[in-house]
C-alpha cells in the first residue's frame, strides 16, 4: 500500500458490482473509480438507475441480499473493506464511516425514543451510560437542536422530517467518521428545510474535517455543496472534475444533456424550449460493450459503436469518457419556442375557503383564497408542504366542496361546489394531471381503454368517433399505437405521465390542474413533459393551475405565481414581478432557499421554526412567528392588509412595499 492512497479518505478502484437475478449476474456498477481526499466533498449525480446509491452503500460495503462485488477494491482511510471479515467490517463501520439516509422517517426505529437510539451510538464506542448521555445531548446541540432534552424524550413520529434528519446526522457524527456518506439527504424535505440541513452539513464539514460523499439528483444541491463531482451513467462515471468545471464547461454529452434539460435561472417557456435527452436508460444488467451512452448520444459516430471510449484528460482532475470531447460544444443549445402568450379573458374566478373537521376541531385549510385565471395562462402555486396548494386544487375540481360562501365562476357561470352536481360540460372543462402516474392510471386497464373511456364519458362520442379521437390524442402526445395496447406498468415513468396528460386533454378542457406533474420524474424526462405541456397550452388555449415545489420549474412555465402559506395567499404577481422585486418576507425566504445551479452564492433568509399546525394558526399574521422581519406588537395582533405593489402584484404584509424594497435590497 502506497503512502498516497493511504491518505485518501475513500478510494474506490474499478469497482464492479452485480445483482444476482435468478442465478444470473446483472452488472450494476461497471468499473467505478474515484477517490475523495480527507475533508473533501465529492458529489455523484445522474438519473435514477445509474448506480449512484448502489455506489454510496458500497462505500460502507452494504449491499442488497442479492448484491455481489465482482471486482475492484474499496479503500477507506487506507483499509480495503472488500477484504474485511465480519468483525473487521463492524469495527470499521463503528469507527470510520457513517451514513445519512434518504428518508429520516424510516431510518429511525419507531418504537424507541430518540435518546435510546442516539445514546446507543456512543455506548458502542465504549462510553459509559452517563457519558454517552452527555455526549448525545452535546451531539444534538452540535446539529443546532435548540432544546435537546425535549427531543431526547420524543419518539421519531413526533418529530418533523428536518428535525429527524438532524438527529440522524448527529448519530452519524458520533464516531467522528473519516468518511460521511449522504444518500439524497434532503429529498422529500421542503426547500426551506433542505437549505437548513445543507447549511448544517456545510458547517459540520469544516468543523470535523470528514470527507463527504454526497448523492443527490438535484444538481443545484451538488453544486452548492461539493468540491468535485462525478457524473454517473449506467454504472460508470462518465465525467469527473471540479464542480465548477463540470457544471460550467461539461465535456460529456450526457452531462451536457442533464444540465440543459433543467430550466436555468431566468429561462422562460416563451424564450426557449428545454433540451431533452432522447431514449431511455439501458435496462439493468444489459450488455454494453462500448460507450454506455451510445444509444442516446447526439454526437455519436462509428468509433463510439465499436470502441470503448478512452479517458480523455481535460485538465488536472477533469476527465471525460468520450471519443469526441471537442465536439460536445457543438451540441445544439436552445430550441427556440414559438408559443402564444396568455390571453386576458377571465376563464375562472375563485373565492374559496375550506375548513376540515378533525376529531371535533375545525381545521381551516384554505382561508379566503381569491384568484383568477385567464385563457391560456399558467398560474403557478408555490409554498411549503401543508400550505394548502393541493387542497385548493381539489376545491377547484370539486373533489371536496369549499365552505359555504365559496364561489367558483367558470366563463361567467357559477360552478357547483361538488363534482357530482356539475354538468358534463363543466366536468369536461376541468381536469387534472397528478404527481404520480402510477396511482393516477388504473393499472388493470390498457392505455387505450383509459383514454377511450375518458373521451366517451366527457364528450359523449360514440365508439368509432372516440377511437379516432384517441388516435389523435396519442399522436399529439407522441404515444405510438403499440403503447395504446399496453398496461401502465409496462410503460416508463415519462410515458405514463404522457398517458395521464392525454387523458386530461381527452375532452378539450378549459383548465387543467397540474399537481407536481414532474416531481417524480428524472430531469431529462421532466424537460420533455414541460415542453409538451407548454405546446399543448399554446395550441389549445388551455389554462393551467400549476402546483410545484420546484421554483425553477414554476419560473420557467408560469405566467403568474401565487405564494401560499397556511391556506392563505401571501403574494401574487406575474412571474417577473415575483422573481424580480419586492417580495413578501415568506416569498423572499422561499426564493433564497433554492440552491443555485450556476454557483452564484445566495443570501439565505432563514426561517425560524416549522410550519404551525393549521388547526391552531398563529394570531394576527399567520407568518409572524417565523418572519425575520416581523414588527413586534403589530404582526402578532392584526391581520395584515393586502397591498397592491404594482398592477397585478399584491402582498399580504404590514410592512409597506417601499420599506420592504429598502430592506430587501439592503442585504
Amino acid at each position: 500500500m502506497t503512502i498516497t492512497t493511504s491518505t485518501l479518505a475513500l478510494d474506490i478502484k474499478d469497482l464492479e458490482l452485480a445483482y444476482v437475478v435468478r442465478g444470473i449476474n446483472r452488472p450494476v456498477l461497471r468499473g467505478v473509480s474515484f477517490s475523495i481526499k480527507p475533508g473533501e466533498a465529492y458529489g455523484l449525480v445522474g438519473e435514477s438507475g445509474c448506480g449512484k446509491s448502489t455506489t454510496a452503500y458500497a462505500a460502507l460495503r452494504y449491499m442488497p441480499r442479492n448484491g455481489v462485488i465482482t471486482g475492484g477494491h474499496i479503500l477507506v482511510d487506507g483499509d480495503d473493506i472488500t477484504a474485511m471479515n465480519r468483525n473487521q467490517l463492524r469495527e470499521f463501520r463503528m469507527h470510520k464511516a457513517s451514513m445519512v439516509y434518504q428518508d429520516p422517517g424510516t431510518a429511525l426505529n419507531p418504537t424507541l425514543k430518540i435518546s435510546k437510539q442516539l445514546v446507543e451510538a456512543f455506548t458502542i464506542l465504549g462510553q459509559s451510560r452517563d457519558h454517552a448521555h452527555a455526549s448525545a445531548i452535546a451531539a444534538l446541540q452540535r446539529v443546532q437542536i435548540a432544546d435537546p432534552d425535549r427531543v431526547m424524550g420524543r419518539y421519531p413520529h413526533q418529530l418533523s422530517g428536518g428535525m429527524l434528519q438532524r438527529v440522524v446526522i448527529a448519530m452519524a457524527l458520533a464516531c467522528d467518521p473519516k468518511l460521511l456518506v449522504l444518500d439524497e439527504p434532503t429529498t422529500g424535505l421542503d426547500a426551506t428545510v433542505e437549505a437548513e440541513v445543507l447549511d448544517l452539513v456545510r458547517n459540520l464539514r469544516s468543523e470535523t474535517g470528514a470527507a463527504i460523499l454526497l448523492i443527490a439528483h438535484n444538481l443545484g444541491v451538488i453544486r452548492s455543496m461539493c468540491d468535485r463531482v462525478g457524473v454517473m451513467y449506467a454504472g460508470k462515471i462518465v465525467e469527473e472534475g471540479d464542480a465548477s468545471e463540470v457544471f460550467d464547461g461539461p465535456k460529456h454529452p450526457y452531462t451536457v444533456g442533464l444540465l440543459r434539460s433543467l430550466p436555468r435561472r431566468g429561462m422562460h417557456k416563451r424564450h426557449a424550449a428545454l433540451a431533452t435527452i432522447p431514449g431511455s436508460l439501458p435496462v439493468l444488467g444489459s450488455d454494453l460493450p462500448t460507450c454506455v451512452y451510445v444509444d442516446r448520444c447526439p454526437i455519436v459516430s462509428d468509433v463510439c459503436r465499436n470502441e470503448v471510449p478512452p479517458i480523455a484528460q481535460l485538465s488536472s482532475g477533469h476527465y471525460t469518457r468520450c471519443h469526441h470531447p471537442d465536439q460536445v460544444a457543438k451540441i445544439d443549445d436552445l430550441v427556440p419556442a414559438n408559443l402564444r402568450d396568455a390571453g386576458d379573458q377571465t376563464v375562472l374566478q375563485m373565492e374559496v375557503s375550506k375548513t376540515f373537521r378533525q376529531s371535533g376541531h375545525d381545521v381551516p385549510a384554505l382561508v379566503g383564497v381569491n384568484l383568477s385565471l385567464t385563457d391560456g395562462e399558467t398560474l403557478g402555486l408555490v409554498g411549503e408542504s401543508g400550505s394548502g396548494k393541493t387542497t385548493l386544487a381539489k376545491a377547484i375540481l370539486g373533489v371536496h366542496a369549499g365552505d359555504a360562501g365559496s364561489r367558483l365562476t367558470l366563463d361567467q357561470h357559477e360552478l357547483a361546489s361538488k363534482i357530482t352536481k356539475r354538468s358534463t360540460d363543466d366536468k369536461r372543462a376541468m381536469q387534472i394531471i397528478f404527481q404520480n402516474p402510477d396511482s393516477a392510471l388504473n393499472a388493470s386497464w390498457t392505455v387505450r381503454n383509459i383514454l377511450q373511456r375518458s373521451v366517451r364519458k366527457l364528450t359523449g362520442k360514440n365508439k368509432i368517433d372516440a377511437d379516432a379521437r384517441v388516435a389523435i390524442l396519442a399522436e399529439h402526445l407522441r404515444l405510438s399505437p403499440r403503447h395504446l395496447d399496453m398496461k401502465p406498468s409496462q410503460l416508463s415513468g415519462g410515458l405514463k405521465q404522457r398517458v395521464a396528460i392525454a387523458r386530461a386533454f381527452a375532452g378539450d378542457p378549459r383548465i387543467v390542474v397540474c399537481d407536481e406533474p414532474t416531481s417524480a420524474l428524472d430531469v431529462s424526462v421532466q424537460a420533455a413533459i414541460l415542453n409538451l405541456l407548454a405546446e399543448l397550452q399554446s395550441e389549445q388555449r388551455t389554462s393551467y393551475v400549476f402546483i410545484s415545489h420546484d421554483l425553477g420549474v414554476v419560473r420557467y412555465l408560469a405566467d403568474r405565481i401565487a405564494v401560499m402559506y397556511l391556506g392563505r395567499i401571501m403574494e401574487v404577481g406575474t412571474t417577473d414581478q415575483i422573481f424580480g422585486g419586492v417580495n413578501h418576507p415568506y416569498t423572499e425566504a422561499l426564493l433564497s432557499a433554492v440552491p443555485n445551479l450556476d454557483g452564484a452564492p445566495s443570501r439565505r433568509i432563514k426561517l425560524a421554526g416549522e410550519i404551525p399546525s393549521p388547526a391552531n394558526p398563529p394570531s394576527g399574521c399567520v407568518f409572524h412567528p417565523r418572519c425575520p422581519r416581523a414588527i413586534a406588537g403589530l404582526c402578532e395582533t392584526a391581520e395584515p392588509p393586502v397591498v397592491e405593489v404594482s398592477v397585478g402584484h399584491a402582498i399580504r404584509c404590514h410592512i409597506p412595499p417601499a420599506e420592504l424594497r429598502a430592506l430587501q435590497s439592503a442585504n
Partner: protein
Amino acid sequence: MTDTTNLPAAGNEASDVLQRSLTERKTARRERWRLLRRRPGFIIGVVIVGIWVFCAIAGDRITPYDPFTDRDSKYCARPPCPPSGAHWFGTDQIGRDIMSRVMMGARDLLLVAPTAAVLALITGSVLGMVMGYYRGWVDNLLSRVVEAFLALPVVMVGILVLTLSRSSDLLSAISFDSRNVLIIYVVALLFTPIVARTVRATVLGERDLDYVVSARLRGESNLFIMTREILPNITGPIVVELTVRIGYSIFTVATLSFLGVGIQRPSPDWGLAIAESRDLLPADQWWPVTFPALAIATLVVAVNLIADSIQTVYER
C-alpha cells in the same frame, strides 16, 4: 448478518429498472403463473388435491368395495379387522372396507366446503367493498357488526345454529331440507365477515388513489368505480383470500362433522368416520381413526400449500 440482510432502499433504483425490464417482456399474470409452477409446494398441493377431487368425482365407480353396503364376512368375521391384503386400510366396526370409504369420503366435504368458501367470498366481497368505498356511518355500523361476528368462535356458532335448526319450521319452510346445503349457508355466513374485513382493508388502500379521483372527475357512477375501476385492482388479494378461505372451510366443515353436527350418516365423511370410531382407540384399534385422519391432513395441507404459494407470488 450484514451481508445477508436485504436492503430495499439501496436496491430501489436498480429494482425499478429490473421491474421495467421484466414487465416489458411478460405480462404480470403470465409471470405469476410461471413463478407458481416453479414452486414445489404448489405442484405437490395441486397433485394431492387433484387426487382427492378425482376420488370424489369417481366415487364408488373406482372403490374396491361398495363403501356403504359391502360387509366382508369372508376375510373378516369379527369386525373391525386390521389392514390386510384384502382390505388395505382394514374394515370398520360393521365390516365395511375403510379404503373404499376414505376414497368416497372426499365427496361431501369437497362439495360443501369450497362452495361455502365461494359463497362467503361473494357476499363478503360485496360487503367489504361497500364498507371500504363508502366509509362514513355505513362502514362504522357494519364494522361493529363484523367485529362482533369475528369475536364469535366459528365452530361454536356452527354447533348452535346447526343443532337448533333441527326443530326450525323457519328453515324447513325455506327448504333447507338438505343438510349439506344448510352447512354451506352456515359456514358461508360465518366466513362472510372475515372476507369482508380483508376486502374492506384492500379497498381502503385503493379508494383514495388518484385513478379513482380521476374517474370521479369524468363523472363515473359509484357502481362503475367499484366494479370496473377498483375491483380489477384487488383481484390479487381476493384470489388469495379465496384459497385461504377454502382451506379454513374444509377445516371447519370437517370439525363440525366430527362434532356430529355437520355432514350426517350414512356419508363416509372423514370427520364423521373419526367420530364414529374414536371409541375404538382405547382397545388398540387404530385403523378406523388413522386413515380418515390422514386423509383430512393431506387434503388441508395440500390446499394450504396452494394458498401459501399463491399468496407468496401475489405479494411478491
